[in-house]
Structure formats: C-alpha cells, structure tokens
C-alpha cells in the first residue's frame, strides 16, 4: 500500500526525504548538551555537607541556565550557585582552520543527609530556554557516625512558647572534652532552625572582632562566625570546654514546630607526624559526631481578646513612650511637630505607631492630625516617629498623655504606658473660617468656545482628586507651533508704529514747507519780471530808462532780506544824480548802467536762493 503511494506520488517520497534530511542537518549543527553528575569523594556521613555538581556541556553562552532538583527523602539539597566556563580550541586540518567553543555550566548543590542508609539522588535538571538537560539518577551510601560522649551540643531553650513578633534570644552551647582541645581539626555545626528564614528570622547577629574566639555555624546564607565565650565545666568527672554564643530571632509564623536537633560533626586527629620542615601534620584522624535535643517550640499570636486600641505590634517588656513638641506656645491652627520616642525590650523594627485620633490620645475635636502614617526610624536604640498636629480649639491647654500598649509574653497580658502631658498655650489667631470665605460667582458661559466648559456651581461638592472627566488632556503635537518663539513677530507692531509716525512727520514737514515754497516762487516771478523790465530799457529814453531801472532794483531789494546794499546804494544814488540833475546836465552811459543793474539783480536773486 505504502509502496503504491510512493510509486504514484513520487514527490511525497521526495518530500519525506527532504524532511528527514533537514532534521538530520539540524542535529548536525552542533553537539547536543551532555549532563554529568559529580559528587565529592566518599565516604559520606550523616549531617555532613556533600558537594553535588551537575555539569552540562554544550549549552549556549547566554542566557544563564536555571537548576532544578528534588531533595531526596531524609536529606536536604540546596542550590548554592551556577558557575559558567568557556573553553576555545582551534584545529587546522588540510589548511582549513576550525575554531570550536565549548560552554560548560556547573550547578552547585549541597546535600546533607539526616539519617544513614542508601540515598537515591533523583535526576538533577538544568534548563536554558527550551533546552532541558537531566543527569542520570544516582545512589550513595550514607554512613552513620557513632555518637561520642566527649561531645555535646544544644540549642536552648529546647522547649518554649513564644509570641509572633517577639524577639527571642537563643543560646548555642558546644561541649567539648578538654582533652580534645588540641585534637579537633575541623568541625561543622548545622541546624534546620538556621535554614528556615521564612519561619524564624535571625536579627542582627553580633560581629566577632579579630582574634576573638568564634563559633562557626552553617546557615541558609552560608557559614557565619559568631563571637563565642569559652568556659570550663566539670560534669560526670569529665572536664569540658563549653563554647557558647547567642542569637536573637523572631518567629514569623504561628504554630507548633518540632525541629530536629542541632548537630556537630568534627574530625579528631589521632596521630601526628612531622614533615620535612618539622611542622606537625595529622597522620590519622577519626570522625566525631554529636546531636542535640530536638526543639519543641510553640508560636502563638498576641491574643485578640482584650487587645487595647493603642496596641501597634510591640511585643516584649518594659516599653515606654516619650512625647515632645517643637513648641509650647502656638496660635490656633499652627502646626506642632510631635516627636514620639518608643523604647523597650523587644524588636523595634516591626512596631508601628497607633492611631492618635482616638480616645486615650489626641481628641479629634481639639486636634487635627496629619493623615500621613509616619514610618519611624530607629535612633540610639529607640524608635522615633514625627507627627504634625494642629490645635483647633483655643481652650486646649495641653497635649494630653498618649496611651501606648504592648504585649508582655512573660506576663501573658497586655501592658499599657502613658506619655507625660505637655503644657500648651494656645492663642486665638486672626482667623476667618471657611464659611466666611465666599467663592467668586460662577463664570459666565464662554463667548467664543464651541464647547463651553461646564461650570461648577457654588454649592457643588468638590470633585474627588483624580477625576477629570471633562478635562481635555490631549496634547498638541505640532512641533512647529510648539517651538514658536517670541521673535520677529514681536517687532512687527514697533515697525508699523514707526512707519506711521514717519508718515505723519513727513506730511507735516511737507505741509510746513508750502508757505516758504510759495514765497520763493513769487520772488522768482518778481525777479524775472524786473529783469525783463531792465533788459527792455535799452530802447528807451535814457532818463526814462534809468527811472525804470532804479524802480526795478528797488522792487527787488524790497523782496530780498540780504540785498547787497553796499553796491546797490551807490548805483541808485548815481541813477538819482543823473535823473535829478539841474537842466538834465548829467550824461548817462545807458548800456553800462543796464549791465550793472542786471548784475545787481542777479546778485540779489542768488542771495534769495
């Protein structure tokens, strides 16, 4: 049947070949990732950390892969980190250079078995994008170390009841036979308690000073060295060295907790030898192991019944509240900054400030409190809160005592303290009330806008902040319009005013010069007329001619303000002498007289110009 199909449809055969070929080609692009599980060399013991590495070769450089593992029953398996490594190699074959890059990622885990026997490690997995690589399952044998009476370790208290949020001190004691003092080579102290950060939070571990005795313990955050005290104690006729240290913790979850005991595994050197340089080196050793009592702890919540209103999460003993104000003489309405300082034996980091506008604090009719919830800060072992209040009533004479409550786990009851009242002098202010302030009349509807905005009425309640349903919050995106600067267009009115003023000035000047121009024209006309009279005298009787010339020159002189009188006067006198000589005895040289009269007329005209 199949052969028939391929016989009748040869292209199907070709297609299948292509698909198979392409899948083969894609596999041939690079080696598929390979996983390898590596464990520290055995033997493996109960409560001792075993390094487990998942090494995968053939992944891409990025992204960083993720590691996944299921802890085997009866053991803890914790991821500690992922380590990348890249190696390059170059091969020359037949003159062709081939460069190969190999990327290896190593997921590092720590395995701690809590009981002896065969332990099966399920496949560990590494994921990078869609690529998943798993190791083969593996089994190891966990050996038990016999308990040694020369060692003891405890967390105290072993059984107790505590309250959620309470700061609880715990004590770690490691008892060690005094004879082992010099023989212990290395040790490892572990407890599940130190690896439950979501249930028990350890607070501000003390930092060991240099050269101080320390006790090293393993936690979820790695190994930490705590300052330790060394005591000598004798028990059952055996001398012990006791290394002890303390940690403060706070339970974060309520419930009943049964926590396996703390363990210590150590290596005792049984035989020493000298090396070439004379130094002592261990030649033989044996393992020591001790396990403490399991912990049986109960964590309760602070009781809800009878919880005072002023309780704000403080758990502990001996809390106190001190209140101070930045001023004691105020005007009504003035802000007063109150500083509230809370001290006590308890964890201050989580405590808050109870509401102040309540009974037992600041009366709401006399004080107005800022609604911001102060976060507070820890200063010199006390928690400080700053609050702003305003006095609303002139009759207020003090900031009353403020109540503060906490839960005392030892007494199993709520306790209450009160701050001391602060005397206050409140003076009335020159105040107008909100009712006195009248809002302006609502605006008239807009004249120009196509959609006049709705105008809030005087009685309309204010719109809640954030509601701007009628606002048009779109923005103009025309960059040319937005980038418009105050520039040339601002100068245009100035230019227009300048132009107008210039026009008016020019028109006035033109108008002002009209009278002067008329006068000049009339002078020109007179000059031409008198000149014609003088020129026409050559044909006349000399007596008559001289009279006309003298009359013409006098007429011109009357028009001119700057006539050349020094020349004109002698000439006129000369003419008069000839005209009025007795018996007409004086002779006149008429052509010369005419010529001179024309020169004088010309001079007067020049002056007029």
């Amino acid at each position, binding site marked *: 049947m199949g052969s028939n199909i391929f016989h009748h449809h040869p292209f199907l055969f070709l297609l299948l070949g292509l698909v198979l070929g392409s899948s083969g080609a894609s596999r041939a692009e690079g080696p598929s990732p390979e996983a390898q599980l590596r464990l520290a060399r055995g033997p493996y013991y109960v409560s001792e950390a075993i390094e487990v590495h998942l090494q995968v070769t053939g992944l891409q450089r990025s992204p960083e892969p993720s590691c996944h593992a299921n802890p085997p029953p009866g053991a803890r398996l914790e991821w500690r980190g992922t380590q990348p490594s890249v190696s390059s190699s170059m091969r020359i074959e037949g003159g062709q250079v081939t460069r190969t890059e190999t990327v290896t990622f190593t997921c590092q885990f720590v395995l701690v078995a809590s009981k002896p026997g065969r332990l099966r490690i399920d496949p560990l997995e590494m994921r990078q994008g869609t690529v998943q690589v798993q190791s083969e399952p593996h089994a190891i044998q966990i050996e038990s170390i016999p308990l040694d009476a020369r060692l003891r370790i405890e967390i105290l208290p072993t059984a107790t009841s505590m309250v959620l949020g309470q700061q609880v001190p715990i004590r770690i004691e490691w008892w060690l036979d005094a004879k082992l003092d010099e023989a212990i080579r290395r040790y490892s102290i572990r407890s599940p308690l130190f690896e439950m950060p979501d249930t028990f939070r350890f607070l501000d571990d003390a930092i060991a000073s240099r050269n101080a005795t320390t006790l090293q313990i393993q936690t979820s955050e790695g190994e930490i060295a705590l300052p330790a005290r060394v005591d000598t104690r004798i028990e059952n006729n055996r001398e012990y060295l006791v290394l002890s240290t303390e940690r403060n913790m706070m339970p974060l979850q309520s419930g009943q907790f049964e926590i396996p005991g703390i363990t210590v595994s150590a290596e005792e050197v049984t035989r020493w030898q000298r090396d070439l340089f004379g130094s002592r080196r261990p030649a033989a050793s044996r393992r020591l192991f001790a396990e403490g009592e399991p912990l049986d702890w109960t964590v309760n919540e602070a009781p809800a019944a009878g919880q005072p209103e002023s309780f704000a999460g403080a758990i502990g003993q001996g809390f106190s509240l001190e209140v101070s104000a930045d001023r004691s003489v105020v005007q009504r309405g003035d802000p007063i900054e109150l500083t509230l300082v809370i001290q006590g034996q308890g964890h201050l980091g989580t405590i808050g400030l109870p509401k102040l506008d309540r009974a037992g604090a600041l009366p709401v009719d006399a004080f107005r409190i800022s609604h911001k919830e102060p976060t507070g800060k820890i200063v010199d072992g006390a928690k400080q809160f700053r609050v702003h209040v305003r006095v609303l009533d002139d009759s207020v004479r003090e900031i009353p005592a403020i109540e503060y409550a906490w839960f005392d786990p030892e007494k199993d009851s709520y306790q209450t303290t009160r701050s001391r009242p602060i005397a206050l002098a409140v003076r009335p202010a020159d105040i107008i009330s909100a009712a006195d302030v009248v*809002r302006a009349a609502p605006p*008239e509807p807009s004249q120009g806008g196509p*959609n006049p905005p709705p105008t*809030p009425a005087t009685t309309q309640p204010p719109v809640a902040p954030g509601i701007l349903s009628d606002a048009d919050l779109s923005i103009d995106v025309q960059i040319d319009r937005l980038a418009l*600067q105050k520039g040339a267009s601002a100068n245009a009115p100035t230019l227009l005013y300048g132009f107008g003023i210039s026009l008016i000035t020019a*028109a006035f000047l033109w108008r002002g010069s009209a009278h002067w121009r008329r006068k000049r024209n009339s002078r020109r006309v007179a000059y031409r007329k008198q000149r014609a009279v003088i020129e026409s005298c050559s044909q006349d009787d000399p007596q008559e001619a001289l009279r006309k010339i003298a009359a013409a020159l006098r007429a011109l002189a009357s028009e001119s303000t700057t006539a050349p009188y020094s020349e004109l006067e002698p000439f006129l006198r000369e003419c008069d002498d000839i005209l009025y000589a007795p018996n007409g005895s004086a002779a006149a040289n008429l052509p010369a007289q005419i010529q001179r009269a024309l020169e004088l007329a010309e001079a007067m005209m020049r002056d007029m110009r």
Partner: protein
Amino acid sequence: MSQHSRLISGLGPARYTSTRAIWAALFILGVLFGDSAMAADEIRDTIEEGIETYQRAMRAERRDERMALFARSEHLFSDAIERGARNASIETNRANAALQTARTGHAIWGYRRALEIDPSHTQARRNLEQARTRLPDWVSTPESSGFADTFFFWRQALSPSELRLWAAGCFALAALGLAIALIRPGLTGRLIALIFSLLWIGLLAPGWIEQQKESRPAGVLIAEETIARSADARHAPPRFTEPLPAGTEFLVVEDRQAWLEIELHNGRRAWVPASAVAPLNQP
C-alpha cells in the same frame, strides 16, 4: 608705471582691511545665526521628546510608571519653555502633564500662562476650569469675564500679540490717511484717518482700561499647603483656619523678597513665603 604701483600699493592695505572687516562681520553674523538655529533645533528636540514621553505615559499601565513619565514630560516641556519656546500650546501641554501628576498648582499656573498668551485658547480655558474644581469650595477664583470682556468681545478672539499687531496696523493706516489729508487736503484722507484711528482706539482701549483697573501681577500657589500669615514672619499668626492649597490664585500686593503680600480673589489679604508662589510672568 611707478605711479600706478604706488597707487596700488597705497590702496592695498585699505582694501585688505575692508575685506577683513567684511569677513569678520560675516563670521559674527554666521555665529549669531548659527547659534540661534542650533538653539531652535534643541528646542524642537526637547519638545519632540516631551511629546513622546507624554504619549508613553498615556500607554503605561502601571500607575507609578505613568506618574514618572508624566513628570518627565512636564520637565521636558518646561525645559523647552526656558530655552525660549513661548506659545499657548506648549504651556497647555506642560499644564496637562502637571495635571496628570495631580500637581494642581502647577497645572493652574500653566493654564493661566497659556491664557495670558492666548485668551482664545479653548483647551487651556476648559482645563483651567476643570483644575479649579479640584480645589476646596472656599478657595476663591478670579472672575473669568468682566465688563471689558463682554463689551469688547474681540479681546477673547485675539491673543494679546495679535491684538497689538492689529492695533499697530490700524495706527499705520490712520497715519497714512492723515498724511494724505495733510498733503492733499480732501475728504478721503480724513475719512481713512478717522476710521482707522477709531479702530486703533477700539483695539487698545479695553486693555488700557483693564490695566488701569488692575495692574498688580498675578500668581498661583504651587506648594502643596501654604499657611497664610497675617505678617511677613514665620511665627506670625495664621490668617485663615485652613492652609491655602496648591492652585490658589491671587494678586501680588507687595513683594518683600522672601515674603509676598497677596490678595485673594475675595479681597482677603495675607502673607505667604515667596518660595510657595509662582508668578505668572515667571518662565
């Protein structure tokens, strides 16, 4: 020949000096124009970034991201205004960004500035009314229309700069008519001068009347809460029971550097710190 040489050599330095002067002048002009062109380009880039940031803010889903982007957009528009952009649209954009970040004081200040530049800007006027609704009822706001605005309706239709331009044009035409009447006495010139003089007065008189009525500079409170005092001192008694909220509009009565005496639009006067105030004429 030698005379020509002397002439040429004598003219040479003078010619070179004038050439140098021309080149120097061209260089200075080039620097000035180049600088102003560069500044204009920077303004355009800043505005473009402001628009883009605002649009990103509108698309953002997380509130804190949106607020941060609106604040950034407001800052960019402010930057462009400080660099010289001066128009009602960019003032409205900046005020919109401020309103989006619930900075009512800055928003009201921005809309007022936009309306100072262009009283006919509908969006600024509408948003100003909306922003004012966010203030408590007892906060007084200026009357949006007066006698001058009602009677001289064109004041709403033209921006002050347009109004000044139109008035100057009318003055120039009136001057032309007067000049014609002076040069060639007749009815035409006088009529032109009369008509355009009346128009010129009509355009400028309302502003002048308004200025005579109120010449005090206006401003807006931008601090979240300002305690208005009865004197210019930090410990002076408060003037009102409530602190004045951001967005309260006022007129400046007296300026004493660190303190301003202001008059609210209901006639009440008080002193406020200058740091809490944004005058409308401030960039």
